[in-house]
């Protein structure tokens, strides 16, 4: 490729990174956290389910029977059972839905006694909206749409997936010595060399992963906002409902209007033992107590990677079929569509794969950050720069505040959840979590601009985040009584691993911030000594570096 073309691509790479870098860091960091959102953080955030839940299939069948008998028959059209602690809900929840009148009754049960602890009536949209949010829901939703609502938020995150892919492609072309860059990392050279090496290293080694995350992220973000309407426009004259109906793998059966008890317990029992690696999330029952009733049970984590749906004949309770979510699309496309979600969140293959996805997700976050910092370092050192030193300084402060602030806000989510557990009287938990999260993030950005220097702002933000993370373990012991010892004895592995991991992360954050501060101080001291002893006039670039890092 011609050097002029490489230069053009370099410009594209730089500008895409400059415009989207901070947001990409935010999305990737929260994405790395979201990998463990459900069910690990969900279980940690709800002490009631930390010891695990035994699903008694016979009791669930009796429960549905009891409550269905108290509701008009029109509410038997569809019954949705949400397994506790597997996805969005800590408690067992059952939704009775009347499709024709768009009415629903939503019951929440105590996991131990199976008594109704909450009842919501309204349209399905209304009853789903009234849920008690915890930090797992908050962070997963933030990663999906930045809490900007849909479609704006989804559109934005989808576009960010596309810009990540554009950056990967342009970065791959402009970096010529890829094999050499695979193993080049110079620790003790200048800041810009270390930054350049880390940017290339994260980029080249994680290229396939970043590409997969970018592509699947773009798909998940844009699917409902752009892709479905576009597909409906092309093939169904703009009728989206018809498109969904055509490709729906869980259609409603034609009812026989002949009474036959639906064998929920048998189907659920079989589903739970079908694949030990699979986590059952939702059970849908269509045409309850009709001869043609159908039960669908869906779960994730099987060896097939994609979400699996098990179809049972309701009256007999035997397995009819097993298929993926997009099977009706047909061909290779259905296979690819089924892979999008597990590829993005790494929810196949158990905790080992999740850990792998988190570490690589953090490298995706570090990729734009190292790129942005490199741009600043190079710009400051350049003899002729297109922008002023003040612009670089302000941009540096913005990156420090926004990126450091999101780390701080994410760390603060854990003590916030413990506070909500301790009080237990606050109903609108999502509002409190949001207030703490966004306030801290904004405060960090403001402090980055107000602090005497960028390095001092970064130091304060990271120290605070470290201390907050260190405090989670003792706070959890105090508030819930689940210490390291009791969690080990009671085999509450999610709680134990979360507490210890947060403590280690906090300790590392404090340690490395301290180390970084010392290194920065000695570098500043060395520069001052050099300036004092040298009689030659100091060049502008050195002044810039000292002023930025001071």
């Amino acid at each position, binding site marked *: 490729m011609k050097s002029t073309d490489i230069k053009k691509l370099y410009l594209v790479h730089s500008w895409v990174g400059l415009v989207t870098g901070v947001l990409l860091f935010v999305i990737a960091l929260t994405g790395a956290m979201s990998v463990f959102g459900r069910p690990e953080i969900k279980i940690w955030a709800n002490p009631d389910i930390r010891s695990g839940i035994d699903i008694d299939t016979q009791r669930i069948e009796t429960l549905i029977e009891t409550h269905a008998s108290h509701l008009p028959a029109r509410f038997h059209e569809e019954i949705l059972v949400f397994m506790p602690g597997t996805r969005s809900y800590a408690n067992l929840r059952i939704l009775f839905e009347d499709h024709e009148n768009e009415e629903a009754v939503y019951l929440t049960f105590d996991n131990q006694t199976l008594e109704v602890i909450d009842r919501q009536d309204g349209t399905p949209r209304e009853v789903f909206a009234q849920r008690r949010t915890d930090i797992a829901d908050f962070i997963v939703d933030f990663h999906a749409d930045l809490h900007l609502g849909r479609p704006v938020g989804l559109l934005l995150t989808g576009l960010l997936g596309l810009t990540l892919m554009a950056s990967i492609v342009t970065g791959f072309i402009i970096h010529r010595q890829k094999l050499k860059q695979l193993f*080049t*990392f110079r620790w003790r050279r200048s800041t810009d060399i270390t930054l350049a090496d880390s940017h290339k*290293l*994260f980029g080249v080694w994680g290229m396939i992963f970043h590409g997969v995350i970018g592509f699947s992220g773009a798909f998940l973000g844009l699917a409902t906002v752009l892709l479905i309407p576009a597909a409906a426009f092309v093939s169904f004259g703009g009728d989206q409902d018809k498109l969904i109906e055509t490709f729906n793998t869980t259609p409603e059966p034609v009812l026989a209007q002949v009474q036959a008890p639906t064998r929920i317990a048998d189907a659920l029992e079989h589903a739970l033992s079908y694949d030990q690696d699979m986590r059952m999330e939702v059970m849908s029952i269509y045409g309850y107590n009709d001869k043609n009733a159908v039960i669908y049970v869906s779960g994730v984590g099987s*060896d097939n990677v994609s979400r699996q749906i098990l179809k049972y004949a309701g009256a007999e309770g035997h397995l009819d079929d097993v298929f993926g979510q997009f099977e009706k699309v047909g061909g290779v496309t259905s296979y690819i569509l089924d892979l999008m979600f597990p590829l993005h969140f790494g929810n196949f293959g158990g905790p*080992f794969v999740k850990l792998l996805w988190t570490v690589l997700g953090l490298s995706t976050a570090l990729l734009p950050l190292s790129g942005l910092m490199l741009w600043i370092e190079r710009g400051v050192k350049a003899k002729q720069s297109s922008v002023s030193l003040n612009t670089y300084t302000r941009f540096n402060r913005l990156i420090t505040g926004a990126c450091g602030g999101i780390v701080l806000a994410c760390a603060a989510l854990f003590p916030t959840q413990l506070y909500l557990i301790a009080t237990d009287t606050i109903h609108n938990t999502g509002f409190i979590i949001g207030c703490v999260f966004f306030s801290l993030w904004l405060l960090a950005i403001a402090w980055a601009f107000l602090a005497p220097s960028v390095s001092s702002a970064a130091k304060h933000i990271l120290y605070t985040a470290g201390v907050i993370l260190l405090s989670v373990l003792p706070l959890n012991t105090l508030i819930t009584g689940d210490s390291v010892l009791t969690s080990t004895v009671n085999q509450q592995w999610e709680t134990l691993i979360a507490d210890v991991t947060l403590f280690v992360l906090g300790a590392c954050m404090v340690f490395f911030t301290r180390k970084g501060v010392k290194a920065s101080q000695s570098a500043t001291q060395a520069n001052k000594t050099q300036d004092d002893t040298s009689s030659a006039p100091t060049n502008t670039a050195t002044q810039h570096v000292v002023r930025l890092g001071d």
Partner: protein
Amino acid sequence: MESVLVLIALAMQFSGLMVLKSRHGLTAHIGKRALGLMLLSLSFVSLSLVYGTLAGCLIGIALIGMMGMIVSIVPARASAG
């Protein structure tokens, strides 16, 4: 058993990459590069066998990326400093 095989695959990848990186920090020696790639492929195949083709391939690719980053960041003996 699966976990043991994954750990073996991990160890193989790590050792393979360390050999690949070599004393000089860069992949100057073709023999070492080949040995490293061979170990990488072996671990890749073993993972695919453990997890079934698709999941194994995905994990293998992701593991190579992660191990590569870790090995590259660890200073090589001759290039450190």
